[in-house]
Structures are given as structure tokens and as C-alpha cells.
């Protein structure tokens, strides 16, 4: 509800509409779009102009140029060293600013060198780094050809999706960037309605749930509340997280549409999915797809190549799921609970895969029962939902408190 954000969004829409109407060439129109994204981020106090100007912008210039160099060098296959240097630069930038241990260590190095420089977390950098890796990998493989700096800036700094996604792909974004999707009255109404729905989910429904959802997560109340109260509180927390994040995604999709960009959908009824693999295909879809394409598939492919004759595909699947989600956990935050949350999901996905494998030869009647009857579907949805909810306890608390919540949920202590 930051009025500066809405002011910037309206300014952005007006300026880009004017550029589309009167911009003599697509070159001018595209630069207006890229420049307004950068200017908007510079003006948002929560992000801060100094990190954007002196950290994010140089980083993006470096990533863009390294991508160009990789393309000229014939991609990762022909120049592995350049590829890994290019990928490690944004990863190191994120690691140094996001994780307190590295931040403190880097702070010491900086002050020992006599520089006055505060190393602080940079808003939106986690997503920026994943977008950068996607750009570098795809430029390197030839899936992205002839990138332009203005479209790369527009893609990485796009106001609607900068803070937390949905995470678009450069080649898809570029189509809308170069040929903005026309905005009819009907489209404008639908986009505005999407924003209203998002605001309602995020600032009314989620806010109403907030007090109840978090009540069991504060120490005095956690110690005294009954297990049933804590169960209800945990359910409310799961609902709140969904409403808050899908509401935010609605805002991003609606505001993106006003700017001529069709931002990809990010949620597809995740709490109604019948297993954890389906859940991750329906929750924060753009991040899940990124994890699948840039971590899970390469890890799985590499392990498959090294598989010995007679080796088990299930072991490879488990190793790929756990490694991918461990990285996803670390990416989400600075704390052991995030790593454990990732491993927990990786193990859940592995068990789900094993279950699919073990039940595959069972008679069709079993599959029909599980997939077509209300009881079978209901059981699967309930199990999946509770698995996810237990993960959210890990995600939303430090490890000590999470263990306390689990004990209280079980009626212990």
C-alpha cells in the first residue's frame, strides 16, 4: 500500500503509453520502458537508490556483457571457465549480501582495506540472480540470441515483478517488450480488477488471518495454547501465506498487463493438489519451473550419465530432488531452518516419486480409486496439504521454535 509505488506505477503506465503513441521508433519506446523501470526502482525508498545505482546496475552490466562474451565464445561448451566465472559473479554478489556470516566476513575485509562501505541485503537481488543465471545459461546454449541491453534492463528491473516475481523468462518477456500487448478497455478493466483482487487477498484477507495465524508462533502463547488452537493457527498461517503471495502475484500480473506485459501465472490451486510433485507444479510456478530447468534437469541429467549399469533411477531422482530443494531452501533465507525446509521437500518429492514407481504395476482399479473417487482424491489432497503445512512450520520459524511448535502440535510439553 506504498503510495510511492502506486504513483510510480501510474507514471510508468502514462509514460509508456505516451512513448507507444508518440515514440518515433521502437528504439526510443524500448529505452523509455527500460529507463522508467530503473527510475522507478531508484525512487522506491524500501529498495534504496544507492544499492540500485552502485550495486545492482553494475552487476547487471557485468552479467549482460559476460552473456555477450559467452555467445561470442561459442557458449559454455567451448568456454567453461568463462561460463562459470559469469555464473559465479551474481551468485557471489547474492551470497555476500544475503548471508550474515559472509556479510560480516566481507565487512571485515572491507574495513581492513580502509574503505567506508556498509554491506547490506539488497531487495529483489535473489530474483535478479536467478534471472541472471537463466540469461547466462540460455545465451550460452543459444536459446537466447541477439540480446539487447535495453531489453535485458527492462526484463531484470521490471517494476511489477522486481521484488518477488513471478519470474518471467527473457525470451518471453522480450516479445512483449518489443511489441507491447495492446490494451483495450476490456483488458484495462480486467487488469485493474486483478489488482483489486490482489489487494483484497493481501491486505484484507491475509491481514485478517495474520493475528490468529501468528498468535501460536509467539512464545508466551505457544506455551499456553491448546494443541487444537495451535493446529488452527498453523492452518491459518498456511492460508495466510497463500493469500499474501498469490495476492502479490495478482498485483504483479495486473500491473504488468497495464504496461503491456503478460506476466506468467504463479499459482494454480496449490492446496488442492494430490501429491507434492503436483503441488510444486502449482505453487510459485515460475520459481518451480526455474528450479526444474536450471538445477533439477542438469543435476539429474549429469547423474543419469554417470549411472552404473543396474543403478537405480530412484536414487538419482532422490539425489536430484534433495540437491535442488536444498539450494531452494538456502536461496530463500539465511538460517538452518530454510536448508532443512528444502531437504524436507526434497525427501517428500523423492518419496512421492518412489510411491509412483511402486504403485505403477498395481491393477488399474487401484489407480482409478485413487484418482477418480472422492475418498481417494480427498485422502491424497489432505496428506499433501498436511505435508506442506508441516514444511511451513519449518519455513516460518527458527529451528528451536519450529521444534517447539511440532511438539505442541503433537500435544507434548
Amino acid at each position, binding site marked *: 500500500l506504498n503510495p510511492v509505488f502506486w504513483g510510480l506505477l501510474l507514471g510508468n503506465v502514462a509514460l509508456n503509453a505516451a512513448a507507444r503513441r508518440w515514440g518515433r521508433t521502437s528504439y526510443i519506446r524500448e529505452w523509455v520502458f527500460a529507463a522508467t523501470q530503473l527510475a522507478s526502482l531508484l525512487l522506491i525508498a524500501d529498495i534504496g537508490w544507492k544499492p540500485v545505482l552502485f550495486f545492482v546496475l553494475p552487476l547487471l552490466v557485468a552479467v549482460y556483457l559476460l552473456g555477450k562474451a559467452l555467445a561470442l565464445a561459442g557458449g559454455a561448451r567451448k568456454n567453461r571457465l568463462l561460463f562459470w566465472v559469469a555464473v559465479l559473479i551474481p551468485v557471489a554478489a547474492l551470497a555476500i549480501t544475503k548471508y550474515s556470516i559472509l556479510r560480516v566476513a566481507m565487512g571485515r575485509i572491507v574495513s581492513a582495506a580502509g574503505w567506508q562501505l556498509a554491506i547490506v541485503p539488497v531487495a529483489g537481488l535473489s530474483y535478479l540472480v536467478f534471472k541472471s543465471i537463466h540469461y547466462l545459461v540460455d545465451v550460452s546454449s543459444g536459446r537466447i540470441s541477439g540480446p539487447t541491453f535495453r531489453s535485458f534492463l527492462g526484463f531484470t528491473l521490471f517494476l511489477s515483478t522486481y521484488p518477488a516475481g513471478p519470474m518471467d523468462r527473457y525470451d518471453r518477456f522480450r516479445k512483449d517488450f518489443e511489441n507491447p500487448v495492446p490494451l483495450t478497455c476490456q483488458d484495462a478493466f480486467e487488469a485493474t480488477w486483478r489488482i483489486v483482487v490482489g489487494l483484497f487477498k493481501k491486505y484484507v484477507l491475509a491481514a485478517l488471518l495474520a493475528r490468529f495465524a501468528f498468535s501460536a508462533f509467539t512464545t508466551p502463547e505457544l506455551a499456553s495454547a491448546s494443541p487444537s488452537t495451535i493446529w488452527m493457527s498453523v492452518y491459518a498461517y498456511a492460508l495466510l501465506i497463500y493469500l499474501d503471495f498469490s495476492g502479490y502475484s495478482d498485483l504483479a500480473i495486473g500491473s504488468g498487463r497495464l504496461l503491456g506485459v503478460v506476466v506468467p501465472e504463479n499459482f494454480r490451486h496449490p492446496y488442492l493438489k494430490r501429491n507434492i510433485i503436483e503441488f510444486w507444479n502449482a505453487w510459485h510456478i515460475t520459481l518451480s519451473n526455474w528450479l526444474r530447468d536450471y538445477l533439477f*534437469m*542438469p543435476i*539429474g541429467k549429469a547423474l543419469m550419465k554417470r549411472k552404473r549399469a543396474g543403478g537405480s533411477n530412484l536414487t538419482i531422482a532422490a539425489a*536430484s530432488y534433495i540437491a535442488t530443494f536444498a539450494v531452494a531452501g538456502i536461496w530463500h533465507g539465511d538460517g538452518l531452518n530454510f536448508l532443512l525446509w528444502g531437504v524436507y521437500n526434497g525427501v517428500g518429492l523423492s518419496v512421492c516419486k518412489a510411491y509412483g514407481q511402486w504403485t505403477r504395476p498395481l491393477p488399474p482399479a487401484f489407480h482409478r480409486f485413487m484418482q477418480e473417487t472422492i475418498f481417494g482424491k480427498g485422502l491424497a489432497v489432505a496428506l499433501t496439504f498436511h505435508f506442506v503445512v508441516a514444511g511451513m512450520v519449518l519455513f516460518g520459524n527458527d529451528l528451536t521454535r519450529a521444534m517447539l511448535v511440532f511438539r505442541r502440535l503433537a500435544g507434548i510439553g
Partner: protein
Amino acid sequence: MMDKVPVVDYLRKRLLPAGSPMPGDDDPLFSNGLIDSFGVLELIAFLEEEYGINIDTAKHHITDFDTLRKVTQVIAQEKEGRGHG
């Protein structure tokens, strides 16, 4: 024309639930949840062995394996690529 019988056999024997009808040439395999992303990796490993090709997952999107027709197109492209390479 690419022989898709080995692919159909592999899908039926290794990836699809027992007794499920065989998808048509243009029916989605991955995007409707018939096989998952690891199933696509298993399919790729099978294709590499069966057809003697090397499929670079960085060059192919997962949706390139979403239907039987698309799978046979990938096989044809990779065989052609190898021939020219």
C-alpha cells in the same frame, strides 16, 4: 519417418500407470501430469541409448518432450544434427 514404436513401448512399460490408455501423437505427456519432470529425464536417457543421440537439456526445453510427435521431432533433429556435425 521416425519409428516411434520403441518410444511408445518405453512409455507403456516404464513410465505410464498400468492399464492407462496410450496417449495419441499430440496428447500432452508432461503438461497434464502423465509423466513428471524426472520421467522426462528417464525418457531422455532412453532416447539417447536407443537412438544413439546426445540430447543437451540446456538446448531443449522440457516442453519439447511434451507429446509423442514432439519427441520424434527431437530425435529427428538430433540425428540430423549429428549427421551434419
